[in-house]
């Protein structure tokens, strides 16, 4: 019990520290007290720049991290598989492909991108389910099918970029999974859909807890497993799709964060889901802040940093299975 409280406390403190550090570090620098002062009263030109450029980026990073991590928890619960992650099994690339497709061919539908990206993610998710279900969802097979689906959608996306490169220049800005140049409009998208997704996920915590039992057992309790799976998976895809739309494809977050979170706060989703959201937000913000400060002015995208950490981590988990 105390381990849980300590874990929450540490993550929240780290999160606050990182937010302040991230806001005050970079090409425009500010001291901590100067920053706090400017935040609450003063209008300085420095603060204005931070407000317009850095705040959206920080908020997007926080929400993307929370959304992707919770999406991972939900997928792992639905698929009864500790290795499921929206990025690894192709849900994110499905959403990214649809997003790019819309931007390239139907720019008029741009305002509907989140919903259409959701449908792309849902398509990828159902493909993974349909193709690996027969084997009773063996963890390895699901990952293999997922990687194949991921490769397919990534390939389609790249093909689209090659074909449409001359047609549309905004395509490359869509696909680069970089957190630079995020605007308050991006913030409102990810906050709106992200909040819906996170609240929905939390509301379903007791269902997630039940899914640790075998299907036949939960069925015998009068629980409608298929319906629950569908709804939980829908929220998982929503969370993944919205972060793809705003922050691009970032893999392995949904794998890493829940795994560590379970060790710290246990398997009860009532605690696990909020903790994962906080820890995921922290991880992506740290990755993004490191990425933009370590070799400034060159920026390393957060997704690249996550891939460098995440790849070996997946191998580690696979070896442990």
């Amino acid at each position, binding site marked *: 019990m105390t381990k849980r409280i300590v874990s929450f406390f540490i993550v929240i403190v780290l999160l606050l520290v990182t937010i302040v550090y991230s806001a005050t570090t970079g090409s425009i620098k500010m001291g901590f007290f100067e920053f706090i002062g400017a935040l609450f009263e003063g209008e300085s030109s420095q603060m204005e720049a931070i407000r317009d450029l850095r705040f959206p980026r920080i908020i997007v990073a926080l929400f993307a991290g929370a959304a992707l991590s919770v999406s991972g928890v939900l997928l792992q619960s639905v698929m009864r598989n500790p290795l499921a992650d929206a990025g690894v099994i192709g849900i994110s690339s499905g959403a990214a492909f649809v997003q790019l497709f819309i931007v390239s061919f139907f720019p008029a539908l741009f305002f509907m991108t989140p919903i259409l990206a959701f449908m792309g993610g849902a398509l990828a998710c159902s493909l993974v389910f349909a193709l690996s279900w027969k084997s009773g969802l063996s963890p390895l097979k699901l990952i293999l099918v997922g990687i194949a689906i991921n490769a397919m959608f990534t390939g389609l996306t790249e093909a689209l970029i090659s074909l449409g490169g001359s047609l549309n220049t905004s395509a490359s800005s869509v696909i680069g999974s970089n957190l630079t140049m995020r605007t308050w409009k991006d913030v409102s998208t990810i906050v709106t859909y992200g909040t819906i997704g996170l609240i929905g996920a939390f509301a379903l915590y007791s269902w997630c807890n*039940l899914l*640790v*039992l*075998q299907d*036949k*057992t939960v*069925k*015998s*309790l*009068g*629980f*409608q497993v298929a319906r629950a799976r569908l709804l939980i998976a829908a929220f998982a895809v929503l969370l993944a799709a919205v972060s793809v739309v705003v922050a691009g494809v970032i893999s392995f977050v949904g794998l890493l964060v829940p795994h560590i979170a*379970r060790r710290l706060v*246990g*398997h*009860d989703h009532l605690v696990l889901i909020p903790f994962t959201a906080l820890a995921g937000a922290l991880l992506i913000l740290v990755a993004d802040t490191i990425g933009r400060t370590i070799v400034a002015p060159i920026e390393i995208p957060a997704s690249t940093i996550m891939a460098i950490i995440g790849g070996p981590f997946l191998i580690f988990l696979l070896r442990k299975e």
Partner: protein
Amino acid sequence: MDIQDIIVSHDNTRNHLNGVSTTIVKGNITTIIGPNGCGKSTLLSVISRLHSPKSGNVLLENKDLLHYKPKEFAKKLAIVYQQNDIPKDLTIEKLVGFGRLPHQTMLKKNHDEDAKAIDWALTCTNLHQKRTTNLEALSGGERQRVWIAMALAQQSEILCLDEPTTYLDIYYQIELLELVKTLNEQHGLTIIMVLHDINQAIRYSDHIILMKEGQIFAEGEPREVITKQVIKEVYGVDAIFNEDKQLGYYMLPVGI
């Protein structure tokens, strides 16, 4: 419960149950036995609605099983499966609490009633002392009792058990069957179970259903059903039978 002419096929090439009809009497311990692959577990899975039959129907209180809503049905009948994965990081209390699900809706929970039912289930299965222990720390016999406790928390009238003793040491086998007997005699539960051990079936059942190749070969009171001739025909085994003052009627397989 009335079982009428059930046909089940898992793969559409052969019938795993081929026209099974019988009646299960309320308040009895009914045991289904038979050689491997005779369809005994399949019959139990039809009774518990895990599989639906290709044709035929099962009536529970004169209503077709498939017409019950899932939760309504879970209040009537609970089942304990043979093999259960042990979830990580879950206490006995929490798992047994899942058994209250049929009595809860998303918005409505009766905490007093739930707590009472969980207490009762833990007391019956002698797990009260360990209620906050994690499942991973339990022995095989205790684990099996935990799953039974979860089913008991459903407070159903019928309890189904699929080979409850198969993976247990004989000590725990006896302990478990005595528990089943107590539940039947003192709490009035109707028991339907599948057993492998013929002597256990004889000793603990009111009614035995003996199956062979997807059909009921014989059924009735243990003594009537389990005879030298029947065992030879169904199992292909020669057996001798004896009557002991303490043990009652029992069988000893001697050769093939």
